C-alpha cells in the first residue's frame, strides 16, 4: 500500500488566478472571507439602494442570468435580489484584463462581487468556457454579454456558448444603476432607486435570435 497524493487542481497558481477560477475550488479562508464580504455588500446595497424586483427567478440547476451592463453596481444589486443559496453559488463573469490583472482588484471583485475571470483577449477562451459549462452539473452565472458598461448590444458568441452548453438563459433588465454609480465615478451615489426585472427563460428562442430578443427585453424594461 502506498499513499497517493492528489494536489488541489489550482495548486501552484498565484492567488490572483485562484480567485478568478471557475468552478471555484474549496478554500476555507477564501470561502469564509467571501461569505463575510457577501453579507456586508448585500447589507449595504439593501440599505442604500431601494430596489424594486419584478418577475421571479426560475428554479433550475444551471441558470445563466444575462443582464444589461451600465455600472459596477449591476452585479451587486443582482446579488442582493437573489436568495442566499443562489448567492453562494453565483459567479459573475468579469474581464480578466480589468479585474484580475492586479491582486487588490481581484480580491475586491472575487470577494465582494463574486467575480470569476473571463479572458476577452484570448480567442480560445470561449472554447474553454464551453467545456467548463458543459461539465458543470449545477450553478448560477451572471453574464453581461455587452462586455462593457459603455456598450449596450449583446455579443452573440457568449450567448451561443451558453445556449449550446444547455444552460437556461434568463434575461435580466437592470434600471437605475447608471445614475446610482455612473461610469468613471469613484464611489456610488446612495439612495437612488433601482429596478430589476427577471424575464421568463429564453428556452424556445433560436440561438441566432438571442441577442436581438435580449436587446428588446432590455429596451422594454431597463
Amino acid at each position, binding site marked *: 500500500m502506498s499513499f497517493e*497524493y492528489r*494536489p*488541489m487542481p489550482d*495548486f501552484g497558481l498565484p492567488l490572483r488566478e485562484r480567485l478568478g477560477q471557475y468552478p471555484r475550488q474549496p478554500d*476555507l479562508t477564501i470561502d469564509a472571507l467571501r461569505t463575510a464580504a457577501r453579507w456586508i455588500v448585500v447589507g449595504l446595497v439593501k440599505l442604500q439602494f431601494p430596489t424594486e424586483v419584478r418577475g421571479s427567478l426560475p428554479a433550475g440547476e444551471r441558470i445563466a442570468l444575462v443582464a444589461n451592463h451600465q455600472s459596477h453596481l449591476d452585479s451587486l444589486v443582482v446579488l442582493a435580489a437573489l436568495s442566499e443559496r443562489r448567492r453562494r453559488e453565483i459567479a459573475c463573469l468579469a474581464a480578466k484584463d480589468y479585474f484580475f490583472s492586479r491582486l487588490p482588484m481581484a480580491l475586491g471583485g472575487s470577494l465582494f462581487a463574486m467575480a470569476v475571470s473571463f479572458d476577452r483577449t484570448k480567442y480560445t477562451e470561449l472554447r474553454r468556457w464551453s467545456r467548463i459549462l458543459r461539465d458543470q452539473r449545477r450553478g448560477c452565472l451572471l453574464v453581461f454579454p455587452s462586455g462593457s458598461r459603455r456598450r449596450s448590444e449583446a455579443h452573440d458568441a457568449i450567448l451561443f456558448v451558453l445556449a449550446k452548453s444547455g444552460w437556461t438563459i434568463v434575461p435580466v433588465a437592470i434600471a437605475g444603476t447608471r445614475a446610482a454609480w455612473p461610469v468613471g465615478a469613484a464611489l456610488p451615489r446612495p439612495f437612488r432607486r433601482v429596478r430589476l426585472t427577471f424575464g421568463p427563460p429564453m428556452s424556445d428562442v433560436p440561438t441566432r435570435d438571442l441577442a436581438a430578443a435580449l436587446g428588446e427585453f432590455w429596451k422594454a424594461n431597463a
Partner: protein
Amino acid sequence: MEALAQPLPAYTALAALGVLVFGAFLRLTRLRAGWTPYRTWLVMLPIIFAALWLGIWGWALLVTILSIYGFKEFARATGLYRERLFVLVVYAAMVAANVAAYFGRFGLFMVAPVWAVGALTLVPIIRNRTEGMLQNFALSVVGIVYFGWFLAHLTYLAIWTGGLGLVLYVVLATQLNDVIAFLFGKLLGRRHWTVLSPNKTVEGSLGALAFSVAFAFLNWPLAFPELPWWGALGLGVIIGAGGQIGDLTLATFKRNVGIKDFGNLLPGHGGVLDRLNSLTLVAPVALHFVRFFFDGFP
C-alpha cells in the same frame, strides 16, 4: 546606548544594517539570483520585527498565522485540503498549542499533540468512511506535530525571561544559515551530496555549519549571555546542522509529493513552508537543548 544592549533594539539595528550590507554585496557580486529573495526579505523582516515589538502576543499571533498558512500549503499540496474536518482539527490544534505556550503552561503545551491526535481519531468516525482515512490521518498528524507543535516552540521560547534574545537568535541565525548555504553553494559549490535536494553541495553545507558556529559565538554576549561556552557551541551546531536537516526533510516531502515548491506567496523563496523549513526543526531542538541542560536559563 543602553537600549542597544537589549536584544530587540540591538537586533533590529543589526537586521537593518545586515539588509544594507547584503544589498551592497549583491550589487558588488552581481549575483542576480539573489535579488528576488532579497526584495522579499525587505517585506518579511519588518513583519517579524513588528510582531516582536508588539510583544509576546504579537509574536504568538504571527507564529500561529504562519503555522496555519504553512499547513494549508502542505494540505493543498498533498490533497488533504479536500477533507475539511481534518484540516479544521489541525488548525484548532495549532491555535491551542500557541495559546498554551503564550500562557506558559508547559505541561499543557507538551501534551497538546496528544489531545489533538485524540480529536483526530474522531474524524473518521464522524465521517463514517474508511477510504483514504489512514493517509488523511497520517498527514494530519504530521501537520499537528511538525508544522503546528514544533513551530509553537517559537512562542514558548519568547515567554522565558531573557528568551527574546534566544528567539531573535534562532530565527535570524536559521534564516542566515540558509542564505549562507545558498551563497557558499553558488560561489564555491562543486560536489553535490544528496538526492533529497540535488542543488545542495558539500561546500555550501560545511560553510553554513562553520558560519553558524561562529555566528553563535558572535551572538553569545547579546542573545544568551547566561549560557556557558559549550551552550553557545551547541546552539551553533543545532542551527547549522538542524537547519539543513529541516531543509532536507521538507525537500523529501516535496519530492515525494512531486512538487517543486509548497507555494508562491514569497517570491524567490516559494511558499511559507519553503521559508520555514529549517526553523520548524530548529525551534524545538533549541528550546529543549537549553531547557534540558540549563533548565531554561540558570
